[in-house]
């Protein structure tokens, strides 16, 4: 072996309650080319309002939550996103990274490996976890 394994799980981030969690990116396969692809939220949705009795100029940016971003892969991935979310929920939760990446937040290494194995069993090689990109 040429290098050490010290960086194996460097993708640690603080979770919602301040505990250290593992963040890994979630990749599915492109329905067209079958290569691994992952959605990135480039800008929040801009939500405006129409009303019956008044004009509302307000436009509010709405960031998507992890599962909402995952659902946007429907028709782009080879697998059904709700099925993926169902598997993820058993081991961790879906979040959106600071750069808009779709991430799975997991409590520890065992959960990451169990989820990877659950993906293999359910979807073959169609869904994969990978390290985050700096």
């Amino acid at each position: 072996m040429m290098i050490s394994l010290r960086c194996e799980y460097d993708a640690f981030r603080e979770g919602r309650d301040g505990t250290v969690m593992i963040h890994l990116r979630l990749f599915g396969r492109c329905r067209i080319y079958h290569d691994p692809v992952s959605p990135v939220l480039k800008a929040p949705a801009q939500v405006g309002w129409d009303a019956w009795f008044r004009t509302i100029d307000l436009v509010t940016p709405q960031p998507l939550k992890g599962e909402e971003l995952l659902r946007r892969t429907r028709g782009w991935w080879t697998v059904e996103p709700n099925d993926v979310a169902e598997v993820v929920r058993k081991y961790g939760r879906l979040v959106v990274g600071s750069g808009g990446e779709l991430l799975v937040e997991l409590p520890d290494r065992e959960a990451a490996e169990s989820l990877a194995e659950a993906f293999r069993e359910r979807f073959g090689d169609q869904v994969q976890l990978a390290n985050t990109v700096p």
Partner: protein
Amino acid sequence: MPTDDTDNWGRDPQVRMMRRVFSHMETLQSRLIERVGISPFDERLGRWRRAALGMFEREWVEVSRRGGPPAEEDLSRVYVECFIEILAKDGISLPDDDLSAVRI
């Protein structure tokens, strides 16, 4: 393989070719990562993939300019050479025997 019964894209020869290219790239990359002996979750992989992609896209343009559209097998070969070069820049080198196995 996907279980999509309505794989109309798969009828397009260009799409089929790119599927083969990406699949071969993935196989070579997995083989390389395995030979290097790191976890698929290693944090550095993202940086390496991004750098290799940038180098590959520049090389692709260069190869196309020199001799027309590159052959399928050239694309994956060029990609894995870029990946090997990126690893080398980070001080990770493989013995020649391992490199030969990866390039097959």
